[in-house]
């Protein structure tokens, strides 16, 4: 019975000493004090030999149990203290996580570029390729090959910058149509994005702006196709439920020609300042390629038909972002650019 009593008093004194221990070295000290070579419990174990055999077994079992208890308690406490210490250390290392990150702040793409790329991507996903042409263009490509001879009244539709009598700043991206058709045979479908120039400047006109031209030529291309492709585009760019309407118009290089309107996105068609009360906003020009244009590039208009379209990117961007002055695009104020 003496062994058991010894065990429980050891356990009691151990627990009394453990509770104030607050560091890993103190725990180590305790371990040595109880379980070391000269430890209190070790000494008791050594004393077991002096007990009568019948008491020895019982007292031995009790002491071993106590030893195990102490070992576990020490280990548990040590782990607790380690975690506590780590927490303290980490807490002391705290920084202000609300300060800004240290990466390079990226700049912003110009909204016109963003719209241009968005439209380009819609056409590319429909299988159109992307073509380019010179911005300083021959009169021939800008006008004559597009069925606009010199002295044609349609030249008045576009105020032209001249470099010489035969060289102009292209007034539209349409000359790319002619250049590509001269180079490639049908069928073809491509778009031509780029800068164009008109000798004109006021609140809604700048002397330079961006257009995307498109052309699709094949053996059975119809006006119906034109309607479907442009409707798909406008639904993607604006919203799938924006109304789209086609009305007859005139471009020398297309026939039939159409202006395409979308339902005013500001007033939803009830009439406002932007749509001049009509409920509709003119968004692009299009039509079936005029057979004269095909003849100029050596395509047989009896075999091939095609559609062409052209749209102003600034205009579309203004509608997308509710921008009311086209000149903002070219001031390059960082407070403007930073919004896109």
């Amino acid at each position, binding site marked *: 019975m003496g062994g058991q009593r010894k065990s429980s008093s050891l356990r009691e004194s151990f627990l009394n000493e453990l509770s104030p221990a607050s560091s890993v070295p103190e725990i180590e000290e305790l371990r040595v004090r109880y379980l070391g070579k000269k430890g209190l419990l070790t000494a008791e174990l050594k004393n077991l030999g002096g007990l009568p055999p019948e008491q020895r077994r019982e007292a031995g079992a009790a002491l071993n149990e106590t030893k195990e208890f102490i070992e576990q308690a020490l280990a548990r406490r040590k782990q607790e203290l380690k975690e506590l210490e780590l927490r303290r250390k980490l807490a002391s290392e705290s920084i202000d996580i609300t*300060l*800004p990150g*240290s990466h390079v*702040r*990226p*700049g912003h*793409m*110009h909204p016109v570029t963003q719209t241009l*790329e968005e439209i380009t991507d819609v056409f*590319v996903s429909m*299988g159109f*390729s*992307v073509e*380019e042409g*010179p*911005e*300083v*263009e*021959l009169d021939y490509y800008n006008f004559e090959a597009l069925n606009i001879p010199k*002295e*044609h*009244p349609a030249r008045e539709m576009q105020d032209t*910058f*001249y*470099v*010489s*009598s035969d*060289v102009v*700043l292209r007034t539209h991206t349409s000359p790319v149509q002619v250049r590509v058709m001269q180079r490639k045979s049908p069928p073809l479908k491509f778009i031509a994005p780029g*800068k164009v120039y008109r000798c004109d*400047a006021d609140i809604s006109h*700048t*002397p*330079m702006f961006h257009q995307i031209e498109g052309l*699709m030529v094949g053996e*059975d291309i*119809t*006006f*119906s196709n034109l*309607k*479907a492709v442009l409707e798909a585009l406008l639904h993607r760019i604006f919203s799938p439920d924006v109304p789209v309407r*086609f*009305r*007859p*118009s*005139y471009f*020398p290089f297309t*026939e*039939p020609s*159409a202006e395409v309107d979308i339902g005013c996105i500001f007033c939803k068609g009830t009439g406002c300042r932007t749509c001049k009360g009509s409920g509709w906003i003119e968004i692009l020009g299009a039509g*079936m390629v*005029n*057979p004269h244009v095909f003849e100029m590039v050596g395509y047989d208009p009896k075999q091939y*038909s095609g559609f062409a379209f052209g749209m102003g990117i600034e205009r579309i961007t203004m509608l997308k972002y509710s921008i009311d002055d086209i000149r903002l695009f*070219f*001031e*390059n*104020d*960082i407070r403007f*650019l930073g919004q896109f």
Partner: protein
Amino acid sequence: MRISFGWLSEFIKPGLSVEKIAHLLTMSGLEVEALETTPNNDVIMEVNVTPNRADCLSILGVVRELSVLTGAQVTLPPARIKTEAETAGPQIKVEIRNPELCRRYSGRVVRNLSIGPSPEWMARRLEDYGIRSINNIVDITNYVLIELGHPLHAFDLNTLKGGRIVVDTADNIYRQIKTLDGVERKLAGNALIIADAEGPVALAGIMGGASTEVEESTTDIFLEAAWFEPVNIRKTAKAFGLSSESSYRFERGADIEIIPYALDRASFLIQELAGGSPGEPVDVYPGKRAVPRCIEVSAARISRLIGTDISREDATGILERLGFAPVWSDSVITSFPPSYRLDVEAEADIVEEVARIYGYDRIPTALPASRLSVPEAMAKMNFVRAARQSVRRSGYSEAINFSFMNPLALDMLSLPPEDARRSAVSLINPLKQEESLLRTTLLPALIENLRHNLQRDLKDIMLTESARVFIKRKKGEQPEERLMLSGISMRNSTYSFWRNGKDEFYAAKGAVEALFDGLRIQDRSFSPSQEPFLHPGKSAEVFISGRRCGFVGVLSPAVREKAEIKGKEEITVFELDLDIIFENLPRASVYRPVPKFPAVERDIALVVDDAVSAAEVIRRIKDYPSKLIESAAVFDLYKGDGIPSGKKSMAFNIRYRAQDRTLTEDEVEQVHEGLIKDLLVHTGGNLR
């Protein structure tokens, strides 16, 4: 073209509101841009008449169109006059010397009329059109012009010399005319002239002469109605910088067959409003009545181009209402468009007429059934996008500027006369002098953008632009167009976190290097730049694959001063030729085995003269004849305590590796010792 609803209603009564009519017209090609109520309580439709539809530049034209759309009958305004040939006296004799330019010339003498003010209804109507009422005769010619679209002119008969009219080009015969606007004009070349026995009395189809002007004292007139060739009128009007309601219509093509009616209509109004006795008309029409054009088109072709089946009934009905008198034979329709539809010339025009009257909104949509084709690579587009995005990620926002350049910008950059960027294309008709050249560099615009932002007290301005520049070849030829990518940066905020504040040059160079890294361009180098607008000690020419592709550097203080940019922070700029970079893009990577054996690293700190560049040292290390040197990089630069002035300490990390074994310390040591000796000899430096 302004179209009065009240006036229009005298011709046709479709029983529709003006809004409904505006909608119908808009949806068939005559866009009504606005409706305006006049002070005289009429409604004016502002109709956008496209250049091909000269026939719609009148009340009558829009009425005809409305009749096609609604089927309502047209009532022509009265034109029956009482001719009194006996009292009309001698006629004017007309001679057309140039029948290609004047295909028809008609006229009528009206005597004993009383010039006076127009009645109020006419004056009001003209006023609604912004035309000032002058006197009843002049007003009538203007009235008929708007009503029927055919220009008329009234001469004071008593000032016409010799009782004759000659139509001829100016050439060398006619030298000068004073037009109604009081301007003396020199005549030459192909300008078509109306002359009397003594000299010019009008610029045909454009403006009358002052000498024969109808005035308060006028009692007899000669009223002209003619047809002039469009291109000639346009050229002459342009040459004189003179555009009139009359020339506007002749340029676009007037209706040659309406002439007798127009003449009668005006004469009728004169009789009504000014009295007088009209004589028998003269009508010189050398080619006689134009044979109607006949255009054949198959019904299948119409449906195929439009993309939906248009029934025979629909097509016939449309063409009949248009006055095209369609005739069917088998499946081919032959159309005979009326004289006023000069724009209808070929098959496509017939298709368009059918489609627009049928209604574009009734044509169903159908995506094209297209065969797949070999996709185009679009490498250039993707490259340009990647380049722009890289610069954006380095902190630059994208600017877009006009392609124009101020000639003074070239001086601001101190470009020498032989610099290619001096070869700028100039515009014949710039909007302003500051925009009279095409850009040869994007820099001036970016400097201007920087200044704009600074003036608004904005900080940390980093802008980039990618656009074409234009280098002149020969005069009058198309210039060379090159795609450039440029940037400007001024980081002047004192309140930015994490700013290391070191040399701004390296930030700009870093943007260029990031671009190259993204494009996997390893073969690149930088050497001191001679650009006159850059800081000579903080600027570099950029080379890839040995080709110069641009520059990067700090803007020189001299340029800053000229550009009037305040502040002390450095401004960095760069400009790269994207076309050159695109041509020198590396080919796709080929896999090299990953090393199997470990590398050994050694560092060297060298104290060398300031003039020795890191690139020189690295080149020397790489050229050292040992296969074991895998790479070398500079990792520290130090000047200051412990380093003599005029010198600097640079530290390099060198990595040794063998492909077939693990290197021993001894092996590495041997090579490294040799390398150090070599570097000390070549750089004249010491170990630190």
